[in-house]
């Protein structure tokens, strides 16, 4: 499948950054056409920098990005005609109402007013914003403002959509409405590059994922690929007293409230489950979640901020 977006040895060093501090370091990615591609990583990992370079908002220091076959370095006009972006922490103009935000954005892009009106109505319906269409942005909650921005770009005629944490601040129902709209856009053969802090969201939406840390690519592939590449693809939770040393012989153990958490391989998971049940303990087991993989690879939770360019030893957990 052809790539909608591909980066080649992409590097970014911000002006004034300390020596050796790269926001992106030799990052090469292939983002297939017509799919949702998730970019995950902690704050400061380089997700937004990647999106801003690909969306022609920021210049790269090394390498380049091709969007729909055009080089961001010198073919930005051809790229801009076919992309749309919801930047991180962006907000709609507070004196507009919801309908105006979407409609005027489409008109600004050059759409015919009648077509802009039709697309606006569809997008507002799709994201359950119609009841708020005449509400001023200044009177909306943060979640509704974010949803309005999502409606704005989803209503556009762009082939590639860059969504930088589009669902931050949304309640679970609103998040799912945005998810559905993103899936629909993907079914229309549009490519969506999504960054998110919600790993369940990344997993639910993305056909492929890239995990980046300190500007470097740590893992890339389908969610199944990612599971297959971690050393311990199964997690077992044992409630009650089970000798830690015995458990540690099966894999990686950590203590949790009321018991132990073990990361291990599938046969060992079954073995541990059998032994735990023999002791009358309660267990739960299953494939690792994306959150587990992230913790395993990066060594820190996605909620923690990235401290800088230092590479984590935790990457040793990934099988080459």
């Amino acid at each position: 499948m052809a790539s909608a977006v591909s980066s080649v040895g992409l590097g970014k060093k911000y002006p004034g950054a300390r020596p050796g501090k790269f926001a992106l370091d030799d990052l090469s990615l292939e983002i297939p056409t017509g799919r949702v591609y998730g970019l995950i990583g902690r704050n400061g990992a380089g997700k937004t920098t990647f999106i801003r370079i690909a969306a022609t908002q920021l210049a790269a220091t090394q390498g380049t990005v091709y969007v729909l076959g055009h080089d961001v370095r010198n073919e930005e006009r051809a790229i801009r005609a076919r992309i749309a972006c919801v930047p991180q922490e962006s907000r709609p103009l507070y004196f507009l109402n919801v309908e105006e935000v979407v409609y005027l954005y489409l008109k600004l892009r050059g759409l015919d007013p009648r077509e802009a009106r039709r697309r606006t109505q569809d997008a507002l319906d799709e994201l359950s914003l119609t009841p708020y269409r005449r509400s001023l942005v200044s009177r909306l909650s943060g979640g509704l403002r974010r949803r309005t921005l999502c409606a704005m770009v989803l209503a556009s005629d762009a082939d590639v959509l860059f969504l930088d944490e589009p669902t931050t601040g949304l309640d679970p129902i609103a998040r799912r409405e945005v998810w559905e709209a993103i899936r629909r856009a993907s079914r229309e053969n549009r490519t969506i590059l999504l960054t998110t802090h919600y790993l369940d969201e990344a997993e639910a939406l993305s056909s492929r994922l890239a995990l980046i840390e300190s500007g470097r690519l740590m893992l890339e592939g389908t969610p199944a690929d990612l599971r297959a590449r971690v050393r311990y693809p199964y997690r077992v939770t044992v409630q009650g007293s089970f000798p830690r040393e015995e458990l540690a012989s099966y894999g990686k153990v950590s203590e949790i409230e009321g018991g132990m958490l073990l990361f291990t391989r599938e046969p060992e998971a079954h073995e541990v489950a059998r032994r735990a049940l023999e002791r009358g303990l309660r267990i739960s087991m299953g494939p690792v979640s994306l959150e587990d993989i992230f913790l395993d690879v990066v060594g820190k939770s996605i909620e923690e901020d990235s401290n800088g360019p230092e590479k984590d030893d935790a990457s040793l957990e990934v099988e080459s």
Partner: protein
Amino acid sequence: MSERNRLRSIFTLVQLNGIIPIRTTPLYVVNLLASPLSFLFFIYIVSHGTYVAYGITGGMVLTMLTVGTSLQADLTHYRHDLKLQDIVVASPVEAPIYVAGMALSELVYSLPALAVFVVLFVAWGFATVTSLVVVAGVMVLVWAFACALAFTLATYFKDVRETFIFSPLLSLLFTVLPPVYYPISALPGWAQVAARVSPTTYAAGLVQGAVGLQPLSLSAAALDWAVLGAFTVVLFLVAAVKARWREP
């Protein structure tokens, strides 16, 4: 983007940043009237009406300059707080379209103030074909260089609070210190030379000359036009080089 679409984009920016905010908050218009009318009132009281003509011509220049100071604040706010510029960059809208649309949108705020001053201009008997042509030309150039300056400055501001510092400073440097509200002859010799650094000195000189407040020979007028035009071109060139569409 076709020419038709470019025009549509410019008009949309005017609607988005000019017409709709005024509809929502009409006090914006009063805000732009406040400074030039305050100056006019002050001059009227202090000079017992003698210098009120300077208050009218100066008020027109100040109104157009205020378009620039408002624009730099809006551009900075939209870029840093709302990320509007990033949204527009990642779209078919080209930088000159954004520049033209935003500059024109700010002009909308100044139209009521300009209307008031035009009425006063006519009421004071200044309106002739020549004076109206000169005033219109000068207003366009002041608007253009004020907007070019706004785009350049907004590139360097990291927060809208920084514009709060620069807006009064620009007003001071371009309308209070230079002879916009008084004749240049009122300044001591060294200050007259210093005033030549400000483009508003030439703008005010042309308007004051056109309405007969100051003697202005044809050659002096030609020189004023040339210098004012050159200032505008240079400020546009600086804006074109320094203002960033894609961040480095």
